[in-house]
């Protein structure tokens, strides 16, 4: 899994490529929490268009991101969901819990 962060002022896009699993999710978790905690970002968009697999530890990292955002009144968005990641969010009934966007550019 690779992560590429694009920061513009108070808004960041976290582009993820590859599988998000027990091996790789700690890096995603750390990236997102750092953006909220150390960088004071008001909006973090996780662009998942390059991701075909998310397991429960990946879900856990995304939930932590959302929890952190709620705590500091920031915004946390998942963009570009492919079929398998969308399916996991459906199965865990979290699709309605997250803010979802078709693509990172769609988030205004």
């Amino acid at each position, binding site marked *: 899994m690779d992560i590429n962060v694009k920061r513009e002022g108070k808004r960041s896009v976290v582009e993820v490529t590859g599988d998000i699993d*027990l091996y790789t999710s700690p890096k995603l978790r750390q990236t997102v929490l750092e953006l909220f905690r150390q960088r004071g970002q008001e909006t973090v968009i996780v662009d998942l268009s390059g991701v075909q697999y998310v*397991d*429960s530890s990946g*879900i856990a990292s995304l*939930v932590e991101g959302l929890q952190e955002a*709620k705590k500091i009144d920031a915004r946390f968005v998942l963009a570009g969901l492919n079929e398998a990641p969308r*399916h996991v969010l459906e199965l865990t009934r*979290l699709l309605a819990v997250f803010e979802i966007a078709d693509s990172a550019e769609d988030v205004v």
Partner: protein
Amino acid sequence: MADAIEITIASHPRWLRLVRQTVLEFAREAGFDARDGDAITLAVGEAVGNVIQHAYEGRSDQNFRLCCRTGNGYLEVEVRDDGRPFDPDEVPDLAPDELRPGGRGLFLIKTIMDEIEYCRDGDENVVSMRKRLAASAPK
């Protein structure tokens, strides 16, 4: 046709992807479509992740065994480890959409597979999972 593969792997999360690719290919060759194959792969990935994280408490130098079998209209996957014993009945059922990070692995396995069973065989923990092939997609 009954057919089986068995694989022994080190308990390092770097091999999770290999486990998934092997299981996905097995499921597809057993006749499951792409969506079911992905779901089965997820369930097995969760079971193996639990072995690494919980049974072996994160130790990456242990081994676990994965056995996939397919016969008349079903797929069976067994994961064996010799780590800490585990009783799934002691794990509370939590709503998956509650806002807490962990605790969705067992839920996903149960949701995806038709049957799941935990047992102890000598010094080993055994998780057995089964999924039936939908009548529309035999191969």
